[in-house]
């Protein structure tokens, strides 16, 4: 938010000249508001529905909470099931993110800064990975995970997630790492830094924006992943939140208000996380889609 204001100051003089344009066309705002309303309404329905009672929802499905009740939310916030699933999601999310970022930065550094014969093939291998999302490989992947004895184990979710997170990471990070000027590397070499020293002292700090973008995308992807936990995790104690939401909504299928409260609490972490870092994501994508 501050960046838009910051961007405005240098071009202040031009802005003043066409001051009437500053607020833009009312039509633009109308369309934007309409679009936002369509995007947000279902989410508001879930959040507000959690503050209602079942009889309110039955008599007036599209109404507002009247009166507001917090018992649905407080009930879930004090339940062991919710926090257990929350912890599982957090463990899986953090471990996957760390794995994706560490392995991704290492291999992207090689692809961006070394010259060797198989480089093109290696890059194509990861780029091809973009074409084959998890769902297509889920049946055979399940067999592999089963053979490794990782069924109903959080590691059985984490490890494949790292592998499937690598293609996006490589695609986003390689341009970032390549953009670091050669001169910096040469200067570091003259000062007696090895290439690996250059990697740790210069590359990691300089590519931090890209790394943060990749990390956020990895975390949100892991937090929302459904199909892999569905296959791998069997016991409720190991469920992540997406499985928990589904189990909860079939278990309490008559208690709509409670289901809505559980659902809205389950989406909060990803939403908060994204709102804090949204500029990083847009920035990272800008780098990746630049033609």
């Amino acid at each position, binding site marked *: 938010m501050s960046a838009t204001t910051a961007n405005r100051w240098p071009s202040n003089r031009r802005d003043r000249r066409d001051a009437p*344009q500053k607020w*833009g*066309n009312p039509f*633009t705002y109308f369309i*934007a508001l309409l*679009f*936002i309303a*369509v*995007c947000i309404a*279902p*989410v508001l329905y*879930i959040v507000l*529905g959690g503050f209602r009672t079942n009889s309110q929802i039955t008599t007036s*499905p599209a109404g507002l909470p009247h009166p507001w009740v917090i018992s649905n939310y407080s009930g879930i916030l004090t339940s062991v099931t919710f926090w257990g699933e929350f912890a599982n999601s957090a463990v899986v999310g953090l471990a996957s993110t760390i794995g994706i970022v560490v*392995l991704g930065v*290492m*291999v992207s550094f*090689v692809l*961006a800064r070394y010259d060797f*014969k198989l480089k093109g093939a*290696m*890059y194509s*291998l*990861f*780029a091809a*990975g*973009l*074409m*084959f999302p998890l*769902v*297509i*490989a889920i049946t*055979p*992947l399940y*067999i*592999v995970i*089963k053979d490794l004895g990782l069924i109903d184990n959080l590691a059985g979710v984490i490890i494949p997630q*790292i*592998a*499937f997170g690598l*293609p996006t990471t490589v695609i986003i990070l390689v*341009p970032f790492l390549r953009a670091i000027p050669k001169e910096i590397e040469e200067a570091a070499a003259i000062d007696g830094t090895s290439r*690996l020293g250059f990697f740790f002292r210069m590359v990691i700090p300089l590519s931090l924006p890209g790394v943060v973008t990749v990390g956020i995308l990895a975390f*949100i992807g892991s937090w*929302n992943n*459904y199909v892999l936990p569905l*296959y791998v995790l069997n016991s409720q104690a190991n469920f992540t939140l*997406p*499985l928990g*939401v*589904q189990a909860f909504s079939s278990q309490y299928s008559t208690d709509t208000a409670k289901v*809505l409260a559980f659902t809205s609490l389950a989406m909060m972490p990803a*939403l908060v996380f994204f709102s804090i870092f*949204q*500029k990083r994501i847009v920035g990272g*994508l*800008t780098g990746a*889609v*630049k*033609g």
Partner: protein
Amino acid sequence: MSETLGTDTAAGRQSQGTARVGGAGGSAATSPASPRAAARRRGRARMRLEIAVLSGPAIIMFLAFVIFPVAVAAYYGFYRWHGYGAATDWVGLNNYKLIFTDPAFQQVLWHNLLIVVLSLLVQGPFAIVLALLLNQKIRGRSIIRVLIFVPYVISEVIVGTGWSLMLQANGAFNDLLGHLGLGFLQADWLADPKLAIWTLIAIISWKYIGFAVILMLAGLQSIPDELFEAAAIDGASYWQIQRRITLPLLGPTIRIWGFLSIIGSLQLFDLVYIIWGQYISGTAGTSTMAIYMVAQGRDAGNYGYGSAVAVVMFLISLIVALIYQRFVLRRDLRGAVTEGAI
């Protein structure tokens, strides 16, 4: 580095039979040579070691959990196999014959095709127009961006749970239509086989259009402002500028979004599975290939057949991706996603 390529093979030949350094197959030459060349060769051996250490873990993970499973699927696809013990019941191409003659598979293939085409036709133009509008200097641009990205950020399970509650026959959506005096439009959005697939496409558009808009906005921002200013000085109108400058320069972004959208549509699973479930989706007419794969494979305990369906999905995606890259992304080969493959 390129001038050392010639000596690279020579060094490799010299070192045949001598010790290999690390996993990279780096060569340590033993033959006498000028100290500089020896130092250079040592440097290259070290470089190969670095390459192996840095890229090894990622490549091993990727091969083991992305590439290897597909190979496993290709193997089990030739067997009737129920998921335990060794696969012994070789059935040749019989699984594939069954898939392509099963009317249910033809139906899910048609659904996927419809989703691919309508995702492109609905989301694409909308996203471009919205991105053009939102790229103007307007107040609250970043808060608008956060809000339109919300449907994309929340998980499929939450989207599915929320929409299936809202769209029930006695749900919030029909109630809202009634309040707006549009009661004649009320319908059973999820269960009516004539409507369900369109409901699904509407939910997909709602969920993923934010991603398209953000991608387009990111693409728009990489177009230099000077081009617009120059065109404006030359007297071009707003829409002329958009048509002659913005759209052509946005081309690579649009084409890459199209690619991601097609691949995503081909593998659609979560939303359908959550809203309709594996059994109802058949009668509501919303099953996709992935639903078919799970229902016929894992849920029926028929892993050989499920693997064969996975292979078919894999090949369809591969063919579509190759055709798309050959004919649509060709012009962008030097940029964007394929940037590193030089």
